[in-house]
């Protein structure tokens, strides 16, 4: 295909990315502002980061969020991977339409509805709202995102690899853990990361399903934003962005390495 990349194309991409990134860049820049006024530059300072670490409420919320994120992302990854296997491998079982409906609907469902309905469930079964209920709610939401990510990898998976392994005498369990799992592992890892960041981000569902003592970081940030914009929140946001950015970069480097290794292995195998 002959691609002609016109000036119009380049301009729209540059403007588009400026639109996507400028607000985030400005937010990060103004977290280093000396002045208390977020939008007037008063010189470089890291004092907001220092005061951040002395804010006990914020630190507690960070700890809660991190724990909820790790636990819910891990459980959601297992459940989501199972759901993806179900969606791609079992094309005919009764209740499949309902199942795929329940996997896809949460992706677009307005969060206020999901949050309210989960809360009412927890009240109905008599679960005390708190850390545990937020974690359950996040598992439910994020497992669907994991399912979609893993499913897209499974769809392009070459099934003849599994058949070859089993023809050579591997048990199905061994085939799954030695052939299938390594191939879909990058998707599972990015599914976990997506689940973790979604959990880290969520304000609405957490607000509904959380109780006293389990205030998450977005809830804390939200209540502070309502009182007014301060550089301290900018600093908190910058740290969050940095954590996610480092995670994404490490994951993509690891992915690339694995890809290179795989190509080397293939070449070595061909040379025999």
């Amino acid at each position, binding site marked *: 295909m002959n691609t002609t990349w016109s000036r*119009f194309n380049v301009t729209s991409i540059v403007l588009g990315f400026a639109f996507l990134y400028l607000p985030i860049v400005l937010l990060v820049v103004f977290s280093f502002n000396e002045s208390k006024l977020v939008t007037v530059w008063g010189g470089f300072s890291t004092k907001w980061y220092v005061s951040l670490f002395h804010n006990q409420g914020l630190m507690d919320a960070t700890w809660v969020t991190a724990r909820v994120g790790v636990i819910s992302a891990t459980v959601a990854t297992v459940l989501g991977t199972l759901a993806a296997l179900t969606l791609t491998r079992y094309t005919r079982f009764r209740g499949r339409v309902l199942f795929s409906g329940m996997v896809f609907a949460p992706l677009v469902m307005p969060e206020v509805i999901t949050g309210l309905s989960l809360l009412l469930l927890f009240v109905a079964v008599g679960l005390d709202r708190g850390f545990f209920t937020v974690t359950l*709610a996040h598992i439910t939401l994020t497992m669907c995102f994991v399912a979609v990510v893993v499913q897209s990898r499974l769809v392009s998976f070459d099934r003849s690899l599994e058949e070859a392994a089993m023809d050579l005498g591997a048990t199905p369990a061994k085939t799954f853990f030695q052939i299938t799992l390594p191939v879909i592992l990058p998707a599972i890892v990015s599914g976990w990361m997506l689940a973790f960041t979604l959990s880290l981000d969520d304000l609405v569902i957490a607000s509904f399903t959380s109780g006293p003592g389990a205030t998450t970081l977005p809830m804390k940030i939200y209540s502070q934003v309502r009182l007014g914009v301060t550089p301290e929140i900018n600093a908190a946001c910058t740290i969050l962005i940095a954590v996610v950015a480092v995670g994404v970069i490490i994951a993509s480097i690891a992915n690339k390495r694995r890809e290179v290794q795989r190509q080397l292995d293939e070449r070595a195998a061909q040379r025999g």
Partner: protein
Amino acid sequence: MSNIAVTDAAAPSTAAKPFLTRLGTGFVNRLVIIVPYLWLLFFFLIPFVIVFKISLSQTAIAMPPYTPVLDFRDGISGFFAGFRDLNFDNYVWLTQDALYFKAYITSVVIAAISTVLTLIVGYPIAYGMARAPATIRPTLLMLVILPFWTSFLIRVYAWIGILKPEGLLNQLLLSLHIINQPLVILNTYTAIFIGIVYSYLPFMVLPLYSSLEKMDYSLIEAAKDLGCPPTSAFWKITFPLSLPGVIAGALLVFIPAVGEFVIPDLLGGSQTLMIGKTLWNEFFANRDWPVSSAVAVILLLLLTVPIMFFQQAQAKAQEQGK
């Protein structure tokens, strides 16, 4: 769970059998299906039934603040007695107060306008990406996805500093002498549009890109050779071919935008009316759980058709992926 029995097991050809069937036992097979199935049933579907149930109960000053409906504590007779207590007061209430009706209409209109705006902003970006040299396409794709990884709340919050009367946008425009007085953007519907377009842009660009990337550009060249002007070539060839992407993107933006809470709350101020905010206030400020459940039920009914369209589009994409 008889309705999720695996019917595949009887398939004649070995190659067509699902992979785990070969374990010889259907147990693992079923476990793979049953565990996520039950989880979603319990945490996704049943909660909606409860929402519906509570929307039919009365507000009470208690904890939880509603009178029980369909109470099984009194056995079967109590269960049937519960039916007599069902009441549609909450729904009647929603129709009596014009506020709710206005909030639904405004939300749908705002979501629709924002979807069109997102499409207008997102299309040139997706198109530019699809026409970019193949070597830099993965990088561009990564750059579109990256903002999605940063917190939604943070991205919305960032716009407050930009749109405020004394914010960065007004400072810039004032210093360039484009305007003499600061524009009032924050706490208006304009700010909500900006917020939605900004937050949901990746959801529009990604499906558009994937359908534009698959397009055969020799079609455009053929049209050009035959004397078709570029604009009509776009409307006659490019746009129709990208329609699946347009539909997927539009649904991914429209459906969540209707029930959006964070954006209207932080950027729209107290004057703007959207149903997600109404539900939130009904729940957290007025502590009226039955009415907020009724609001949620109506919102869900409103979105049923677009959600079904979305699922069909997903299922189709999944078929094509195979």
